[in-house]
Structures are given as C-alpha cells and as structure tokens.
C-alpha cells in the first residue's frame, strides 16, 4: 500500500470578515500518524473541512502527493483516496449497518451509478462488507438500522465507513469524543489496526490517546500552527505548555 503525503501551503479561510485559519503550512509524511491538537475554537475541524473539500479555501494550497485538492469537490477528493470521519456522527441512519458499509464500498469497487447490477448478487462486494463488519465488531448488529445503534457503535460504524473505500489518507475528527475509558481503549486499538500503513491525521482531545498513538503532533491555536514535532518535543515545548497543555493542567 502506497500511502500518500499531505501538504498544506499557507492555507487561509475566512468566514465573512473573520479569518479562522490564518496561514497554515503543514507537511504530513506518507504513512505518518499525525495528531492535530489545540484549544476549542482553534480551527481544527475547519482545517479538516478545508482538506476534505467540505469548504473551499480562501487562499493557499492543499495537495495529496502532487495532486491539488483545494479546487475539488468532496467526492472527487474521496475518490483520490482521502477519506474522513465527522466529529458529529455522520452515517446513513435509516439504512442497516451492513448497507452503510456496502454504500461506503460501492464507488471504490467501480460500481459508480450503476442501475443494472443487483447488489445481493455482488459476492465480492458483499463479502468485503461482511469483513468490514467483523473488523469493527458489529457483526451481531448487522441488520439493525444504523440510527438505532448505541453511540459508541455508531462511532465504530463511522470509522468503518471512513476506511471502507480503501482510502490511503484518513482524517478522523475526534473519533473517541464522548466515549467511556474502555470504549476509548477499544476504539484506539481498532483505529491502530485499521489505519496500519496509511497516512492518518486526527483531531483528538484526549492527551493520553494523542501521545500514545501519534508519531507527530501539531498544535493549532487561533488558526495558526504554533508547534509541530514528535510527542516528546511537543511535551517539552514552552509555547505549547502555555497555550494549551498548561492551561489544561491549571
């Protein structure tokens, strides 16, 4: 699997007169596990939305390896192999768990807008969906409407949908938010397993998770990167301690 590198060059985003992202330049190496941290309102989710094409950038460039993403609609970015999850669970709530995963597989398996294939007869596709179901431990909930799953189960489903299409760059927006300690541990183990060998960028508030999982940590404060580096360096960084970690400790 060839994981791509993600490059951001002087990315800016304004909502009206307010500049939310104020010139972010960031390189995420191929196959790296990169954590994005920062206080509330720092612009972490906005940055995700810019990378994944949910919002257009005001200025600057986003590139996956050599391909510019900042002019593309979200579905095209997704087809290039960059996939994301949402902070607020985003699933197809009236479809079954199995159908959710199968929908997430369809495009990457080349079905496009086909109205001639019968889904139930696509053996390889259905087996892949069943395997995903096992990967996220929801086999027992296979035929339940996704909207009726518990919160943690919905989060797991969302991660399953995010990795389903075989994306090589994964963006996870607070995957463990709102989970209990045991649920968080299970989720982190699952993320570690499912994103192996892929480029991972995640927003996370739980510092244990961040320092446990990430190869590199970037700290975003008021729309600007104040530090970026390996966990040990970030922990020792004075500016970070003042702006963020210190504030939490206090």
């Amino acid at each position, binding site marked *: 699997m060839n994981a791509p590198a993600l490059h951001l060059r002087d990315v800016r985003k304004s909502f009206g007169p307010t500049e939310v992202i104020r010139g972010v330049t960031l390189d995420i190496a191929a196959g790296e596990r990169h954590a994005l941290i920062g206080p509330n309102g720092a612009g972490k989710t906005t940055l995700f939305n810019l990378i994944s094409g949910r919002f257009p950038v005001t200025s600057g460039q986003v590139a996956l390896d050599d391909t510019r993403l900042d002019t593309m609609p979200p579905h095209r970015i997704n087809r290039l192999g960059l996939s994301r999850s949402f902070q607020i669970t985003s699933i197809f709530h009236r479809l079954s768990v199995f159908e959710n995963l199968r929908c997430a597989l369809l495009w990457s398996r080349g079905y496009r807008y086909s109205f001639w294939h019968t889904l139930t007869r696509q053996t390889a596709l259905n087996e892949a969906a069943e395997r995903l179901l096992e990967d996220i431990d929801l086999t027992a909930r296979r035929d339940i409407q996704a909207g009726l799953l518990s919160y943690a189960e919905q989060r797991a489903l969302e991660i399953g*949908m995010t990795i389903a299409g075989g994306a090589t760059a994964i963006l996870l927006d607070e995957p463990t938010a709102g989970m209990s300690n045991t649920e968080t541990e299970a989720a982190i183990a699952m993320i570690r397993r499912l994103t192996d060998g892929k480029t991972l960028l995640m927003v996370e508030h739980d510092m244990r998770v961040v320092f446990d999982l990430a190869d590199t940590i970037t700290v975003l404060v008021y729309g600007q990167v104040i530090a970026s580096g390996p966990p040990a360096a970030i922990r020792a960084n004075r500016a970070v301690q003042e702006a963020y970690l210190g504030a939490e400790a206090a």
Partner: protein
Amino acid sequence: MTAAVPRPRPTAMRAATRNRPIRAVAPWIAMLLIALVLPWLFRDYTTGRDNGFMTAMFGQMGMMIVFALSYNMLMGEAGLLSFCHAVFFGFGGYCVAHLLNAVPVVVPLELLPLAGGVCGLGLSAVFGGMATKQRTTAFAMITFGIGELAVTAAIMFQHFFGGESGITTDRQNAASLFGVNYAHGLAVYYLIVAWTLIAALGMFYLRGTPLGRMANACRDNYERAQFVGYDPRMVRFIQFALSGLFAGIGGGLYSIAYEIVTYDAVNAPLSGNALLMAFIGGVGSFGGPVIGAILITALQSGLSLMSNSWLVYVGLLFIVMVTVAPTGIAGILRAHGPIVRAGRLGTLAIPYLRMAVPGLIVLTGLVFLVEMLSFATIGAAEGKTFSLFGFAPNVYAPMPWIVALAGFAAGIVWLRLEGQRFFAVWDDLMTGLAAAAPR
C-alpha cells in the same frame, strides 16, 4: 435448553433461504391473479357484457400504480419532494397521442407505452438537470416552477398540446404485435396490466441496485454520500430521469386508454395526486404507493359518483394520515407484522372494535355536516332534495346541524379515549413481544 439451540439452526437457515424466493414472489403473483380476474367478477353473464365502468376504473388504477410508484422513486427512495411529476406523465401521453396520429403508425400499440416512457425520460432528464442542482426546499420550488411552466406551455403551444380541448387520437391507428383488436375495453385493460407489471418490476429492480441504494443514502445523509465518493446531485439526477421514464409509461397508457390527452394530464392537481397516493399508501415501503393508487382511484371514481364534496373527504383523509399515521397504510400494516407472526392479533380485536364505534359516529357526523353544507350551498340551487343514509332532514332547520355537530364532537372525545386505551394495549403487546424475542 440453551445447548440444544445451536444445532437446528443451519437447517432452519437453509429452509429460510429456500423459502425466500417464494415469499418474495408471492405478493406479485397474488396481485397479478387479482388483476387478471377482476373484470370477470363484474361481468354481466346474462347479457355477456363487461362492466365498462369498472374495467375502465381498474385500468385507471393500473396507470396510477405506475404513476405513484414512479413518484415514490423520488419521494420515498430519494427523499425528493417534487411538485411536477405529472409533467412527465402528461408529456408521455401527448407524445403517444401524436405518434398514434401520425398515420401510418410506426410503433406497434403494445410498445407505445415504452415510447411514452422514452419521451418522459427525455423531458425529465432536461428538467431533472435543473431541479437536482438544488436540495430540499429549493428543489421543491424549482419543481413547482417546472409544473407551472408546463401548464402554461400546454395552453400556449396549441400545435403540440391542442389547447384546452387537448389532443384526441384513435388507438386503432396502430397495428398490434399479436393481432389483438383493441376496440374492446378489456383488451386495453390487459395491456395496462401487462405494462403495470413490467414497470413495477423495473422499479422494484432499481431499488436493489447501487443507484437505488445510493439514492436512499443521499436521502438519509446528503453530505456523507459525498464522502464515500458519490456526487449526490448525479445520483438524484439519474434517479429523477428514470422516474420520468416510468411516469411517461403511465402517461402512454393513459393516452391509449382514453384516446384523449388534455392539459389536465400535466396539471398541478395530478402532480398533487401523486403525492397524495404515495403518502396515504405509505412512502416507506414499495407496496405503499400501490395501495394509495388503488384507494385514491377508487375514491375518485366511486365517491365522486356519490358526493359532490368527495374532494373534501380525500383532503381530510390526507390530513388525518399525515398527522396520525405518517407511515401510511402500508406502514400501519407493517407495524402489525410482529403481532401477526406471534399470533396475538386477537388481543387487538376488542380494542379495535371499541374504536370503531366512536369512529363511525365521527364519520357519520362529519358526512352529514359536509353534505348538508354542500346541499345548502350548491344542491338546493340545482333543485334537488336532500337525503342521506335514508334520512331526509330539513337542512334549513337548526336541529339537524346541532345533532350532527354534537355527534361529531362527542364522537371525537370518545374516540380519543378509546384511542388512548388502544395504544395502552398496543404498547403492552409490543413490550411483551420484544421481551419474548430471542436476542
């Protein structure tokens, strides 16, 4: 006991798989058999003549089933509220009328509905491209505009639409593939049955394809669909265009059956009817619009003979369904599924009967009020005398009004009480079933 459970499972599962095709096909076969014998049940065997009115009504039901199902491809499957669906139905009808009038007719009669479908598809591809650029309210507003545009065009462009008198035609201009003489209403009816079956099978098939499933996905979560690689606008555009294909087939059947197409066939009330049929029947399941189409057509044909104010009843039925049972008739039936399977339907018999009594009182009161009002404003001017269910009250005296109003109001209070009791029983039953269900 728990140890014994796993063993019979494989065989049970295999049996379930074996039974699945039969179970899936059964409702189709049943519907087809009913459709085939229906006209013969109303035949007058002493004179050897068919009941033309009933045969025509059943044919109308067939077209409306196609129309309502094609509407539900938007409403139920894709979550798109369209107000212009009749445009594609009517356009298919006009095209077939013109094809029939261009003697010699190149397309055999049996294939003309398909030609209507292709025309509907062409037009829905054009308008669908415009409408599916937007979502939700904006989408609905664009479709409303398209509907208005079509009605204006139908009146303005006399050459194609024939103005208010419409386009008349003669289905016998076309040759039959199988040498059938379509002068007879029964032959037309069976042609409608055949095309209704084909169209319904086609739409059923579409639900199980990647496009059909992604239409559901875009309905549930437009944004998520983008982040699994799909362009929701393209999904909706194709779905919209295909629904126009099936609406056009329905319109083609209309043209063949009635040999006249007027702007009523593209008009907003017919678009509204699609919504009515789909919603009253139930947008959440495939069979819902079928039930709705049959019911609404029966009301239109039957009730309109009995009452001038039949539209009031249809409107009230719509309001009641949307407020009380948004899942439609099919949804209500489906909710009873687990109860029937558990063999507990009998538990509901008494509560249902207890609701039926005040229900009938409310209905009677309502019918008297509506009919007396209708008579006082229209009927009396026409010089008719008032009589209803064997009663002939004096519409100009206060007493009949007071009685009807009092009965209606008291019935509603009573019905609400019985309703609460009913739902208490219902909830008990459901909790009991959920507790008994194996995990």
